[in-house]
């Protein structure tokens, strides 16, 4: 039962991933890169056991913290057992123990643990927060309840939303902001979290060490639909990542069928473009997530639902039911055909 659940699609298990965390990453062949691009968006982290776990390591920060966690758990487990044994010994004996019990238990034991912990912890802190001037910069801005993402803001400034595509083995500096309330950016498999605070820019440098599909989630309570604010993280081989960047910079895929064309017209007529951008179709809007490659995403509604036409249609018609408190109104006045065409069009954007 358990093992079935652990199975993930490419045949590797979460356990194997975990074991491989320490092994050095081998640079993938061009064929692998191609394959990674082809399968992009096909599998959601929602279907992967452990995709959001700190124990399923796919990043430098998570790796270092995992070691720390392991050693602390073992060490403090021993301390706990030791103290409980002392309670039992003290209970059983009738002769008073010496003052040295309090000395060693109250001062020496905690101080030993504290000093060890501080040395280990500070060195991990310094190592995991080191800034890399050559890192790729990605701007991530939190909104109630979605993520706005801009790759290389000083260069190509490629805008996307609710899905973070990362290159493996390359440091990335995330510049974290918030447009409204405090959110917190957390991809447990890759690194620790960092808050997104209005009026500030917090930087977080991360390095993915494993390719694969992972899940991040807002960790700071941010209002009504806080539980529905997650995102997909896809770690690609370096070459595939570069190709993806190049490919995605272009305008949105053309509507090639009559129903898709009709859907595009619904998008333009119904006011969607007031908030959403589709590059090449309607540009400039920033209030809602960029939809240029919506169909290529692994999930819908900020990492919450599988991406398919039915869910997209349901979302448009009934946003407020699926995600209470979202800024977008429910478009339940759209006619059946309009809704069908619009959702077909949006899903075709890859």
């Amino acid at each position, binding site marked *: 039962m358990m093992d079935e*659940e652990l199975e993930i699609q490419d045949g590797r298990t979460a356990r194997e991933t975990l074991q491989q965390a320490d092994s050095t990453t081998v640079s993938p062949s061009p064929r692998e890169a191609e394959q990674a691009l082809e399968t992009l968006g096909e599998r959601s982290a*929602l279907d992967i056991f452990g*995709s*959001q*776990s*700190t124990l399923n390591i796919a990043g430098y920060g998570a790796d270092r*913290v995992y070691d*720390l*966690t392991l050693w*602390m*758990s073992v060490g*403090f487990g021993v*301390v*706990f057992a030791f*103290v409980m044994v*002392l309670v039992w010994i*003290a*209970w059983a004996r*009738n002769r*008073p123990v010496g003052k040295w*019990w*309090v000395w060693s*238990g*109250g*001062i020496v034991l*905690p*101080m030993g643990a*504290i000093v060890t912990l*501080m040395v*280990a*912890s*500070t060195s*991990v*802190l310094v190592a*995991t927060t080191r800034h890399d001037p050559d890192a790729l910069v990605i701007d991530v801005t939190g909104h*109630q309840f979605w993520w706005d993402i801009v790759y290389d803001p000083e260069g190509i400034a490629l805008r996307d939303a609710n899905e973070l595509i990362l290159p493996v083995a390359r440091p990335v500096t995330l510049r974290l902001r918030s447009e*409204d309330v*405090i959110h*917190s950016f*957390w991809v*447990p498999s890759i*690194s*620790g*979290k960092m*808050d997104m*605070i*209005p*009026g*500030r820019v*917090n930087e977080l440098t991360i390095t993915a060490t494993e390719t694969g599909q992972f899940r991040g*989630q807002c*960790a*700071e*309570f941010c*209002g*009504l639909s*806080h*539980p529905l604010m997650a995102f997909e993280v896809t770690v690609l081989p370096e070459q595939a990542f570069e190709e993806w960047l190049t490919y995605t910079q272009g305008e949105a895929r053309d509507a090639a069928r009559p129903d898709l064309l009709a859907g595009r017209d619904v998008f333009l007529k119904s006011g969607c473009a007031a908030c959403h951008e589709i590059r090449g179709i309607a540009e400039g809007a920033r209030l809602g997530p960029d939809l240029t490659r919506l169909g290529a995403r692994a999930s819908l509604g900020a990492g919450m639902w599988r991406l398919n036409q039915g869910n997209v249609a349901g979302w448009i018609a009934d946003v407020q039911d699926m995600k*209470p*408190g979202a800024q977008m109104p429910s478009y339940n006045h759209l006619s059946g055909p309009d809704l069908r065409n619009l959702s077909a069009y949006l899903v075709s954007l890859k």
Partner: protein
Amino acid sequence: MTDITSDTDVGSAPKAQGTAYDLSPKGEPSKDFEAIWATPPGWRVITSVSHRVVGKRFLITGFIFFLIAGLFALLVRLQLLVPENTFLDSETYNQLFTMHGTIMMFLFAIPMLEGFAVYLIPLMIGARDLVFPRLGAFGYWCYLFGGIIVLSSFLFDAAPMGGWFMYVPLSTSVYTEGMSADFWLIGITLAEIASVTAAVEIIAAILCSRAPGMTLTKMPILMWYLLATAFMIAVAFPPLIIGSILLEAERLLGLPFFDIARGGDPLLWQHLFWLFGHPEVYIIFLPAAGMVATMLPVFVGKPLFGYGFVVAAIVTMAFLSFGLWAHHMFATGLPEMSLTLFSAASTMVAVPTGVQIFCFIATLSLGRPRLTVPMMFILGFLCIFVLGGLTGVMLASVPFNLQAHDSYFVVAHLHYVLIGGFVFPMFAALYYWIPHFTGRMMSKTLGKWAFWLMFAGFNLAFFMMHLTGMRGMPRRIASYPADIGWDRLNMLSTLGAFILAAGIGVFIWDVVRHRRKGRPAGRNPWGAATLEWLYAPSAPGYNFRAIPRVTSREPLWDQPDLMDRPAAEIDGALRRCPDHRRETIGCDPVSGEPIQILRLPHPTWFPLLSASGMALLFAATLAGVYWLCAVGALIALIGVTGWVWEPSDSGVTRDIGLDGLRLPVNAVDKRSHLYVGLIGTNLILWALFFSLLFAGLYLWNTQPVFTEGTARPVEVFALLALVSGAVAFVISWMTARMAVRANLRISAGLNVFLAVALTATGLSLGCALLPIDPWSTAFAAVGWAMGAFVGALIGVGVYWSLLNALRKAVGAVHPSQGLPDMLLGSFGKAAATMALGTAAVFFLAGIAT
């Protein structure tokens, strides 16, 4: 029935000293000792101010809130039973977890410990009541009304839903429309009044009303714990009170304290909140540990191991626990230097904790421990709390914290610490002291069932959460996806929560059952060493017919004369009751030797009246009916005036009937309970002042652009405030100095002068602020807040000075009854110093380029 009877009611009191006020005008000469101390019958019991009544009120109300918040927790756990559950919608879920945390922290844990403190302190230190019984009653009513306001939000469909720490900007009116956050801020602030009044009460009671001979180191160890806790409350609650007031002002008036567009800072709220919030955890833990340290020796049959070690651990812990508030903010992007400072300071708390835990363990080795029900809960405490403490040290590590923060790992940790560190000791204490409340023993069989259900259920529910958190589940999410590894762990946690609840159910059943069927508890049923068991439960309301001299830390074990005769026949002080007043012995804070007789109030309506006025004021603010606020304030003012108007008893001396001592009543002395209480009050005021100063400095330091853009105060008026503030300080100093021997006319004149000087200071500060628009920047708003705070202090000072002058004018005070002036002088000095500090800040801001 009331404090105040007419001056002509001189009764039959002996005329010994030859002065008019030698007589006790407030006694009830028609009543004997028992009747004087009797609780008012029927519904008039609400006028009772006795610590026994008020303490039980706190405990029962607190326990009811515990059950309500526990019910919310069960609903939360039901929602999380299965993934993608639709049992509750997000809004309800958010309301429930917010109210669960809020009620547990503010309306259960703190009031519960106050209840134990209020009930036990006088009994354990050999006093007949607390030194400020009316303050205790007033605090209770504020707590009750505040709690009702918070809970009533459900009726208006406006329950708070921003989490118990109400982070801004989510809780500002931009992102939380409606009144839900206002219910929280206003209700909790009203309830917090009970905490700060309890702090003053506890400090003064423990330091000033101990039995003859009870030196500091002969106090039961719980008194050290409560003393440290009270000082912590006095310093820790003010930042939250200031924070709440600033946030409410932002919501209500649009002042920009936390508004980034106008130079506010959301992190300022987090600093103020956690400056309170972290010490709060230790405020909850320390009294619980104190109760453990009280019960443990009883069941071992030997005194506590290392009293001196434990005292040192308590005192250092009280301080160290203030140095780690920012470890709740590790993920906010603080500089690494700060992170490391708070990380190191956080781990240091392990040292005094370790000392205490090892003293407890060492105590076990002293004799043959008895495995009673309270003892089982104590062992449960040791097990759970040690584990929670260790995960706490893990969380102090910054890199680990960045993974675990705001995940279920933290939920697991905080419940291990709070349930292990407070709820288990509290149940031990309830099993231990319920015979004292009811006179009957609880069932050992049912107690074992309750313990094992609670212990097993707790560990099942919360140990799993460590793993859930490590697997990446954030806290505060109403639903979660099915396939990423959280579902089974959550199901187990929910199962555990219900087992835990079943254990509490068994306890409640036993409470109901034992009232009729419990075995009557004889005198000292546990074989305890402390004075509260001197009388057979449930003891009479006056606690001690005569207050015995204490020569040991374990009086019931070491002083055979206490247990070899009926408790009412024990020799001691104040057996006679010549003035027909409630009285107890006042002592030197260090040596415990008697220095005065404390006159205590009889049942009165004034605390309830004052608290009702306060509640009306707060509720009307919430409802936005501002004329009603004025009515509430007026009622509160009338209540307080009636309360403080009572004729002074000082100047009388009486034979206390112990060692031939003849002591003054309510001595004019710096060791008197009133002066010590005032020092506690001043400490709270200073903490409020420094919280505001911190807010100003913080904004100045982190928002230089907005600070520079803020208009400056007028230097001339700031200078004027400096001068008049200095004058007010000198007059206050003279008031205090001349308190003992002044003649009435001069001292009344000084009072009026003080009122004038304080008014002048306030007006100058107001004028200095005039060119500044408080809506312009957060820094400007904090300047106005400081002005308003000093203005409020000055208002109190003026009211107090004029009241003192008036009382002299109408003859309510006699020459050499200097206590009111001594207190006024001390308060005046504090208020004037804070005004001077504010004026200096304004002056510097005015002249800075």
